[in-house]
């Protein structure tokens, strides 16, 4: 579904945010993209959805080159950004109609899907109000509904769990599982190791722009020894946090 080859992104001529990564995400799998802050996760995702131009390398979605045919590629994707990008001044329903129109979702389908999604994410009561009245979590939910309303084959979610209440997070995880069961694909980034461990078919760990590992959690354990995914993640990314001394914070 997603084919990334030798992808590199260099910012401002010097900062290498993504360093020659290659990755295949198959149809029918949930792929978790892990990495510390500033590792290159969001940059990679933004290149997949066409927000950033790769410095070199290629990305294709369902065999469509993202750079050469952006409109076709984007119409296959439902994207939720790390920070909800929703026009504040309009109402939730106006926003959903805008997205449905752009993706050409027929009225009956959009109403049915919206009705169910709004119920699932408990946003029905607020949908007629301006987005500016929403909390961060509600905006995140609206972004999710907008990304899913056109029933895309590929979901690309950048930190989708952040800001969601436990119930909505649970529902989203269920939806992700159902989506891949139907032969579709989910690519998402997260810092929550439990979530990655529980629902991902495969994970990729990126650190300082380089892809350090791609495979299942079991394969990672075989490679790095027993331990929780969190411990393995810290080991792969070379973190020294475990030995940190933070007593200075409470010193007089």
């Amino acid at each position, binding site marked *: 579904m997603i084919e990334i080859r030798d992808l590199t992104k260099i910012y401002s001529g010097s900062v290498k945010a993504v360093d020659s990564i290659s990755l295949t995400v198959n149809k029918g799998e949930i792929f978790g993209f892990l990495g510390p802050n500033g590792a290159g996760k969001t940059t990679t995702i933004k290149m997949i959805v066409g927000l950033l131009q790769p410095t070199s390398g290629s990305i294709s979605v369902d065999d469509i080159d993202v750079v050469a045919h952006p409109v076709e590629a984007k119409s296959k994707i439902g994207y939720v950004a790390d920070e909800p990008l929703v026009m504040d001044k309009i109402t939730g329903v106006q926003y959903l109609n805008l997205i449905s*129109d752009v993706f050409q979702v027929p009225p009956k389908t959009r109403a049915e899907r919206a009705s169910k999604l709004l119920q699932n994410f408990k946003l029905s009561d607020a949908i007629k109000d301006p987005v500016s009245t929403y909390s961060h979590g509600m905006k995140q939910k609206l972004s999710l509904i907008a990304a899913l309303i056109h029933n895309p084959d590929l979901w690309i979610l950048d930190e989708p769990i952040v800001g969601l209440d436990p119930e909505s997070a649970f529902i989203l995880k269920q939806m992700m599982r159902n989506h891949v069961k139907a032969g579709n694909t989910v690519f998402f980034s997260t810092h929550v190791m439990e979530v990655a461990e529980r629902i991902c078919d495969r994970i990729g760990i990126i650190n300082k722009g380089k892809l350090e590992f791609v495979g299942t959690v079991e394969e990672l354990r075989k490679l790095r020894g027993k331990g929780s995914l969190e411990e393995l993640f810290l080991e792969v990314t070379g973190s020294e946090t475990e030995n940190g001394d933070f007593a200075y914070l409470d010193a007089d």
Partner: protein
Amino acid sequence: MVISLTSTLINAHYNIPRSLYHFKKRERLWEPALIIGVVLLMVFSLGPLYMSLLNTMYDQYDAAGMRQLFLAGPFLIANLFGLIMGVFLMISTFFFGDDMSVLIPLPLKSTEVLMSKFLVVLMDLMVISIAVILPAYILYGIRSGAGISYWIFMAIIFLLSQVLPIMLSAIIVLPLSRLFRFKRYRDSIVYLISALVIIGSLVFVSLTSRVDPNMSAEEFARIFSSEDAILNKTAGAYPPTILVTKALSKPFLEGLLWLLAFIGLHAAALGIFLFFGHKFYYSVYSSLQENFAKRSKLKEGEIAGLMGLQQTKFSALYKREWWYFLKVPAFAFNGFGNVLVFPILLVIAAVAGQTDQLGQMLDQFQQYKPLFVPVGALVAAVAGGINGLASSMFSREGDLIRELKALPVDVNEIVKVKFLHIETLSLIGPAFGAVALSLILGLSFLEALVVFVVGALTLTFLNILQMIIDSIKPILEWENPQRAMKQNVNVALSIPVVFGYVGGLGYLAFLLKDTISGTVMTIILTAIALVGIVVTWPILIKRANRLFARDL
């Protein structure tokens, strides 16, 4: 505290750290070079004309023995401009900047934040004083052979010259905003109050400074009996002008007293400003943050009604343009204001002109009747071409340009949508302009129609040029929507383009009035506009595609 806060806010406001970062890395050097180039171009092209105008005015006042009146005009104009431009800027900076969410939790007094923000707005407005007051007062000082005290007083007056307009508007807007507790459209109400403050001030100034045409000869003579009487009449609507004029024109001690009165007025205004700031600032800000929400339950099947209509991509995006434009008060007020203000000013001039000297001046225009249609079309184009909409085509998107970019929509489609939206709004200018010119110059219906059509074509060409300017490097990183319009360098760059085009062709028409007929001129103008549109449209499309291909 205020100094540290002000320097931080100024750094953020002008993006100084980022500019220094790029400068140190020798990147984007063309940006400051371009701005400096445009400023120098304006100074060297308009400067001599402006100075000659000032010299003529000085000569006239000097000959009439009323030299000090020369000082009144620039101060009055600069303050009026300061009020008009400053009020929206002040509202946006004081109430709608994202930095407030960072500043309010800090242990700062509301008056400290208010003062720092006031100084930021003041820095923006000083541009007006630099352009209007400084050259005139320097010229006065040199030509009148003023002593050292003049230059010291002048420097103080110059530095304080934009303080009162901001304080006055804040003093009016702060308590009024607290008074109007509208739940919905609260931000629009604040802008509306500001617009009313401006209109009220303009009406007040025009009414109080206007000479009644039915005035008796005695009354007229009394007004012109002395320099002070004229000063009181012309500047009476805005008393600080009298203080400034006297401070700069009277002998040292008397001048000093007037200057102290001027400073005292500022101190009093500062006191009231801080008093109102302390009383209302945070509470007004806080009430503006409260959103009106119904949170009403969806009825059975209601969603089908709400989402029961499918539109084309184009219509959906076009609607989005209007939503965004109308629901951001800074955009709506600037956009509508600028296309309506200019024609309204023309009509006011025409109506007022029926009774006094302006009427005689308009009568003199009749000798240039063949130029009415071609030059009228150019004026009509200006009426719609200086609203800053085309030159902030992409800048107005800000962060939301990423939303656009993530959507499966062709860039050409986005450009067409934005073009249609800008044209729809801008065409109000030539339409009203044509009507206003008909009233002023007595054009026939057909002539007015030609003025509108040719004006609209010229405007379309100018709009495309402005859109190209913005698509080369839009200002997308802003928190305050004013930055996307009033403080946008692209808008500033497009002004000389519009005025250069219209002024250049207008001047050419005037020079060739005896050689080429008005009809031929109109045909030539139409041809230039049509060719311009055909040539520049592909450039716009190319630039927009290049913009969307960039990292946003």
